[in-house]
């Protein structure tokens, strides 16, 4: 198999070529702000409404971001008739109720990851969306990045030979006041950090056949650090490490019999893709022109607008099946280290029996 000189360019839709939708943002926290700024900076998508449980907070957010309407409740936001899509940017344990609220009002939804806390909750959200004939998407933004589409094309072209190994690591030390330490906020490394690793492994190596893991909970009772080994068809292996206690390299790679694909850190954000030969020579690199981290959040919105513009309510790049499969793997990972996650959402030590 002859090695390419250059990697294939990403096939992402040009932002200005997709329908310009009217977005409502549910939540006013950090990711809501970055998402809004990213949309307004790079696309014609417009955030026209924002909702918070406190009217004053919503008003201030609207003023700071040039948003037309501020709502003092999520119900009012969902009922806003001038909205096409609701972006749910609330704490994890509120994703399902918020999504169902928006779906019930007939809005398409883009929900921050995780779409819901477990497979059962996510299935319920998808059922509601299907019944209402609205789109329901998880904002797993990595799936929509240019670098990810380059990876897909390299894999599809077979330049790596037989795929055998995913190595992935995602560690970021969080300040003790951060909600990731809080079990009541569905904290822990798996839903926020590990999810990028499992999603990558599933996307390139396919369904997980078995999973083993070791790890530690934090004193607050959430998954602090863990390493997992997953097996896939044909004995392919994913070796994944995640931590919220230490900052670690956060790179990922995919190795096949004929080549190695490396995603320099941070692997899940906009960045380069490097193809090397089994002899260790760098063959080709695709360079991300603008690797400025969360400035790339808009890619999720562009994908949603692209699909809705074609009358599609799902995306093959992060399908409902993929979201459910990923949640199932995260559930299994949590169980393997004795962390129990259920519909109440708190990660914590499982009780005997």
């Amino acid at each position: 198999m002859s090695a390419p000189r250059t990697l294939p360019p990403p096939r992402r839709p040009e932002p200005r070529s997709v329908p310009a939708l009217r977005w409502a943002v549910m939540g006013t926290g950090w990711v809501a702000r970055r998402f809004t700024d990213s949309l307004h900076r790079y696309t014609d998508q417009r955030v026209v409404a924002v909702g918070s449980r406190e009217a004053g907070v919503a008003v201030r957010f609207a003023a700071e971001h040039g948003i037309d309407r501020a709502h003092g409740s999520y119900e009012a936001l969902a009922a806003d008739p001038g909205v096409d899509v609701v972006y749910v940017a609330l704490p994890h344990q509120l994703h399902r109720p918020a999504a169902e609220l928006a779906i019930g009002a007939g809005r398409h939804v883009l929900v921050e990851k995780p779409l819901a806390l477990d497979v059962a909750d996510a299935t319920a959200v998808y059922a509601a969306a299907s019944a209402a004939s609205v789109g329901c998407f998880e904002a797993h933004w990595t799936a929509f990045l240019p670098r990810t589409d380059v990876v897909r094309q390299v894999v599809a072209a077979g330049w790596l030979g037989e795929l055998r190994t995913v190595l992935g690591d995602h560690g970021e030390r969080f300040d003790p006041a951060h909600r990731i330490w809080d079990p009541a906020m569905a904290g822990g490394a798996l839903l926020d950090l590990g999810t990028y690793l499992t999603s990558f492994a599933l996307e390139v190596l396919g369904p997980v056949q078995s999973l083993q893991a070791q790890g530690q909970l934090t004193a607050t009772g959430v998954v602090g650090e863990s390493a997992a080994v997953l097996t896939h068809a044909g004995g392919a292996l994913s070796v994944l490490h995640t931590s919220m206690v230490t900052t670690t390299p956060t790179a990922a790679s995919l190795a096949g019999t004929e080549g190695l694909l490396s995603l320099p850190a941070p692997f899940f954000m906009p960045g380069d893709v490097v193809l090397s030969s089994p002899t260790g020579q760098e063959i080709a690199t695709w360079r991300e022109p603008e690797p400025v981290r969360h400035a790339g959040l808009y890619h999720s919105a562009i994908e949603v607008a692209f699909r809705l513009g074609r009358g599609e309510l799902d995306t093959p790049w992060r399908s409902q099946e993929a979201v459910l499969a990923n949640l199932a793997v995260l559930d299994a990972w949590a169980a393997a280290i004795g962390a129990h996650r259920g519909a109440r959402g708190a990660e914590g030590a499982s009780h005997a029996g």
Partner: protein
Amino acid sequence: MPTNNEPLRIGILGAARICAEAIVGPAHAGGHRLVAVAARDRARAEAFATSNGVERVHDNYQAVIDDPDVEVVYNPLPNSLHAQWNIRAALAGKHVLTEKPSAVSALQAREVLDVVKHTGGAFLEGFHYFHHPVMQRLLSLLDIGELGQFRRLEVDMYMPAPAAGDPRWSGPLAGGALMDLGCYGLHLTRQLASRAGGDPAVLSARRGTNPRYPGVDDWFEVDLRYRGGATSSVRSRMSGAEWRFTVEVVGTAGSAHACNFVKANQDDRVLVATDAGQRIEHLGVRSSYEYQLEAFARHIRLGEVLPWGVEDSVRTLEIIEAAAAAATELSAP
């Protein structure tokens, strides 16, 4: 752990023209080491290293960042490359001295800030003018009350047109009168907020382009008003007939005028006019870039506080964006 007099060990990204004045001269004057440089063209990097006393040449910018001897990364790349390389340098645990502006949008600047705060290195956006005694004198005259209460700031920044291929004319490289010149005046406007009763807000703005360089501001004017009622006017033009970088600070009891606040080494005069009379002060012809590097070295080695925190770059870009959003396009006068 701050140590006293050890030279800074500086890596340079790219062999830009600005380097001679902005980092090479100041490094030599301050006894700091230029450890490494890389450029897109290796031969150019080697010529630069030889002419400027840089110890080694690397093949690419990342190798400069990763060089274990490099502790400070200087980023003079075109504006559109500032954010990503500032982020990479900070992630590698290096201190960052970046040409202004630190990013091309407040969104990007927040990403840079997130990384800098997380990794804890020093970060300085290169508004070098502020460190010079000329600017410090203008502020002192206000603070000691000689000019009375601060009422108005006027900043004029005119320069003759750069050559056709210059990055300052490039939209994709984020050039233009606002991003390359006006940012100084907006940065200074913000620095006076504490003396003006609160932050400035954009009142109105006007911009124009040159038909030879479409899509990039040829000139930009913005008027601002502070919370306390004082006002500021910032005018910039990239196709002026002359070089003119002046600042006038007006108070209720007098005014002070800096004849060249960006290149004070060319004209270090401050003209002061009060009821008591007029006088000319000379504040020193060392380059403001030297003062900047000294301040950064004292910050890194001795823990001395810089004139602004790392969040400042976000605030500056926010006001730049506010000015850009408010600007109506007028035909070139």
